[in-house]
Structures are given as structure tokens and as C-alpha cells.
């Protein structure tokens, strides 16, 4: 399967899992815990699949890493919140907050803040290290803009 196929598969599977999570909420007894798991895994796959699609035709190992990273932090972060026991008033705190919400903020906000923008800058710098590269792309775009639809631009 191509890289784009995997990405699109992630988008479709993620959307399907989220749809399944909502469908479970219509049960007479209300949404079970499995609906929350479906929503967490579905959101992770959908966001990661969308990100992977964004790599265009490049190999872009940084984007592949970030897509995998997104799946791990989202599933792991929300999974911990679903699995860890309820805190007591005297239990340990994390960032000054009860452990579960502290871990969610760490994994979903602080760790991505340290990883994703820096990864974007590295990926961008690799693709457009200087103005000349960009100018060449602009020239190619001007030429391509004069070509009829359906013509390859390579």
C-alpha cells in the first residue's frame, strides 16, 4: 500500500471509529467506556492520517515520525486517563494537578509543544533551505500555470 493509501486509510478508519463511538451513545444504557476508547483511537488516527497526507509526494521521515508520535500521545494520554484509578484528596499531584488530568496536559499539550513546532521547522528547513529553492519552485509554478490540465509537470 502506498504512503498516501495508508494516510487515507487512517482518515477513513478514524472517521469510522468516531462514527461508531457516537452510534454507541444511542444505546439505551448510554455510551459505554468502549465509546470513549473508540473516540480516542479514532481521533488519533484521523489527525495522524491527515498529517501524513500533508507530506505530499515527499518521503518526509519527520512527518511520518510526527504522525506516529500523534497516535502514541493521544492514545496513551487518553488511555491513561481512562485506565488509572480515581485520585484521593491526598494523592500525588502532577504539575500541581491531580495525576490523571496532569498527565493528559503533559502528554497532549506540553510534549507536543516541545516536539511538533520544532519538527515542522526542521522539515520546512530541509525542503526550503534558502530563497533560491523557493524561487525555482515559483518559476516552475509559472510555467505549469500555462500548461493545460492533465499534463505532468515533472
Amino acid at each position, binding site marked *: 500500500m502506498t504512503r498516501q493509501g495508508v494516510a487515507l486509510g487512517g*482518515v477513513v478508519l478514524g472517521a*469510522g471509529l468516531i462514527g461508531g463511538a457516537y452510534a454507541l451513545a444511542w444505546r439505551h444504557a448510554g455510551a459505554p467506556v468502549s465509546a470513549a476508547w473508540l473516540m480516542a483511537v*479514532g481521533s488519533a488516527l484521523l489527525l495522524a492520517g491527515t498529517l501524513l497526507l500533508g507530506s505530499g509526494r515527499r518521503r518526509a521521515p519527520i512527518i511520518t515520525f510526527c504522525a506516529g508520535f500523534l497516535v502514541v500521545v493521544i492514545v496513551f494520554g487518553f488511555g491513561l486517563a*481512562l485506565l488509572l484509578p480515581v*485520585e484521593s484528596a491526598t494523592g500525588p499531584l502532577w504539575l500541581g494537578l*491531580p495525576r490523571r488530568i496532569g498527565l493528559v496536559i503533559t502528554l497532549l499539550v506540553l510534549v507536543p509543544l516541545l516536539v511538533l513546532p520544532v519538527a515542522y521547522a526542521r522539515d520546512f528547513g530541509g525542503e526550503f533551505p534558502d530563497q533560491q529553492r523557493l524561487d525555482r519552485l515559483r518559476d516552475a509554478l509559472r510555467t505549469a500555470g500555462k500548461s493545460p490540465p492533465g499534463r505532468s509537470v515533472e
Partner: protein
Amino acid sequence: MLQSRAASVTLPTDPVIIAVGALYFLICGAIALWALRQTRSAGDFFLAGRRLGPWTLAISVMATTLSGFIFIGGPGLLYSVGSGALFISLSAAITTPLSAWVLGLRMRLLGEARSLLTVPDAIRVRYRSPRAQGLAAVAILVAIVGYVATNFLALGLVVDALFHTGRMPGIVIGAVAVLAYSATGGILAGVYTDVFQGLVMAAASVLVFLAALHSGGGMAEISRTILSHDPGLLGPWGSFSPLAALSLFFVFGLGTLGQPHVLHKYYMLRDVVKFRWYPLMMTVALLVSLLLFLGVGLAVRARVLAGDLSPLASPDDATPTFLLRYTSPWLAGLVFSGVAAAIMSTVNSFLNVGAAAIMHDLPRSLGRPVGDELRTGRRWTVVLAVLATALALLSGSLVVFLGIFGWGLFASTLVPSLAIGLNWPGATRAGAEASIAVGLVGTLVLESLSYFRIYRFPTGVSIAGLMLVVSLLTFVIVSWVTGRRAAEDLDPDVRMIMEV
């Protein structure tokens, strides 16, 4: 949300608060006057002349993204439902890099290569479909009128709270203030007032967060106080169900990729190479401005549970109550100026995007482009603002209804055709048109059923999330069915940009 629950927001008549608020409006006016002299073309009016630096872009997008909700409604929601409220902004560190990778550079290059003015322009060029452009413009207009009216109502409350004008005059004064720079300087005035407004918001947020920590003896002490009285509030979902909280994460995480007032700003960056550090700048600015949301909501809840404060009459009283009790008048004035800033920057962008949809997207989708886009754009900005002000003044409950579904409508109509379609050559014109139509009609129907209590959706089901999923699947399935030669039908320059 701010409008619907903020009726009890009041501040005492304090000359310091009034002076800080008046100074804020004066500075906005001075920036608008400067921008008016710089606005000479439709490109200046709608795209700020494509001359923004990365910091200007980042702070402007941050100010546009955050409405007054983050200062009033957000802390109120955290006060009332606990940690679950945080899921609205939990994806903040993920969405900006994601949006930059998936849309930022592509929209910027496409805008330059094809001289695009609006977000629906990108849809027309990608799919060679004026119909898809027209449908997207209709969806944007439907969402914007309600959104702007809701924000005018909220702005009226803030003006009233600052200057004690009364609610109705407050709405008119607020609307006139925004219109003054939106109709004259367009997005150019908007962007530079955004920068000032964004700095006010960030400064207010940091100072109030520190005051909140100080008032409760630090975050750990605040948590201990809440845990000893109501531990469920600081569970990961607060008083939401896990599905409801996670649904918020999904809707705000992916839905951000379809907000036209944010995407539109990608066209405005001057130097594409400088885009490299935009996600870092924007994410830091966004998270700094969210600190008030976290600090005030928890600190006030802890003080109420500890008996230092009486229970609030309305959750939206959390921020004003905290400011009056625990901060100085000048900081209260700065925060309320920050609320006005957040509302005004959002409204300016919406008016600009809405006017462009009327004078540019709809005529082009019908094959009748208008001549003088600058003059026509100014006229439609005034018309939209007057319409939204009239709605805000005359029709309270209808405005609340219209304001509720704006975010979801943008997401369900624009995310598939832009975030997926600009990256997937197999996407087709039929897929785009079908998903925009399904998102538009489906969101309107389901939100109406829910708002008028004709049908009650189960706990945890978000209509915005549900319609985003339906619209996405419609887009992919219709594209698969109709897309045998989709990639071959792409214009060469569009294909080249999609492959970057």
C-alpha cells in the same frame, strides 16, 4: 456562549477601569487611522497587501482565533464543569503545526500563483468548480452573520461593564467601533489592531494567571482545596462524560483546519521562507493567552469551596468576581480591554471574510465578477455589520441559535475539501460539492432539531463532531466513486503545489 450566559457581568464605576478601557479604544482608533492611509486596493483590504511578517501573522491569528469566550465563558465553564472544559483547548499545541503542514504553505503558494483573495477561491481552483466555491461562500455567510451578531451582543456587554452605557447602547457603540476600522482599513487595519489586541490579551492572561495562583496559594493548594470538597471536578473529564470530553477534543482539533478567518490569513504572509517558525510562535502565543482560562476557573472554584467567596450567581461571573476581589482596578481594566480585544479582532476578520464571500465568491460562482472590489467590499462590510447589529438588538434567542453552530458549520463544510482535498489528488469535484452540501444542510437541520427541542441527542454526541464525520466520509466515498481520472484532471500548477 459568552453572550448567552454573561448577562450578570458588572464592574463598579471606577475611574481607573474606565481610563484603561478608554485608552485601549483610543489606541485601536489610532492604529485604524494609520491603516486607513495604507489601504489602496482590494489586495490591501482583503489580504493586507500580502506583507505580514511571521510574528505579525502569529499574533494576529492568535487574536482572531480566541474570542471573548476564553476570558469570560471559558473560566466560567471550568468553574462549573471542572477539567472537562479544558478539552476545548487541549489540542492547541497540535492544531497549529498540523494546519501549517496540511494547509499553510499550500494555501500561501496557491494564493500567490493564482492571485487568490478568499478561502472559497482555493476550493474553486482546486476542483475547477465555481459551484463548490458558491456553496462554500453560502456556508461561510450563514455561519458568519450569527457569529458576528453573537459577538456584538458580547461586545455590548463588555462596553456596558466598562463604561456603564446600558446594554443596547453598548452593542451600538461596540459595533460602530469595529465597523469604523473594518470598513475603512479592512483586514489591513484588522491585522495591526489584532497585534495590539493580541499583546493586550497575552499580557492580561499572564498577569491574571499569576494573580490566580497567588490568591489560592499555588496550583497544588488550589487542587487540594477542590479535591477535598469535590474530587470529581478535577477528574480528567470533570462533570462531562469521557465521550463528551473527547468529542470536544476531536471537534476543536480537526475543526480548526476549516476556520476561514484563520486560513484566510495564510495568504497574507510576505516571505514564505519565514513560515518555518510560524507554528512555534503561534502555539506559544496561543498557550500563553489560555493561561487565564485555566487559572481563574480553578482559583474561583477553590475560593468558593473554601468559603472565601459566595457561590456565583452565574458561572460567567467567575472572571469579574476574581478581578474585583483579587486584583487591582488597572488590571481589571486591562482584562476587560482584553475581552473587548478578543471580540473585536474576531469580528473584524469575520466581517472581512463575509464581505469577500458576498462581493467576490458568490458573483464569481455565478459567472458575474464585480468591477471595483475595494469599494464593493467596503459597502458589504457595512451592510453585514448593520445586519448583525440589528440581529443582536432585535432578536436575542435567534442570535444565540445562529451563533452556536458557526464553528461546526465551518468544520463540516470546509475541512474535507481543504484539509483532505488539497493533499489528496484522488479527491473530486463531485466529492467536494457533495461534502459541502451535506455539511451545510445536515448541520442546519440537526442543530435546529436540537435547539428547538424537537429531538434530543444522547449525552456525549456533538452535532458538530457527527456532521464532521458524515461530511468527511461523504467526501471520500463520492470521490472514490467518481474519481477514476481525478488526478489527471488537476491543473498542473495546482498539482505541483499539492506535491510540495
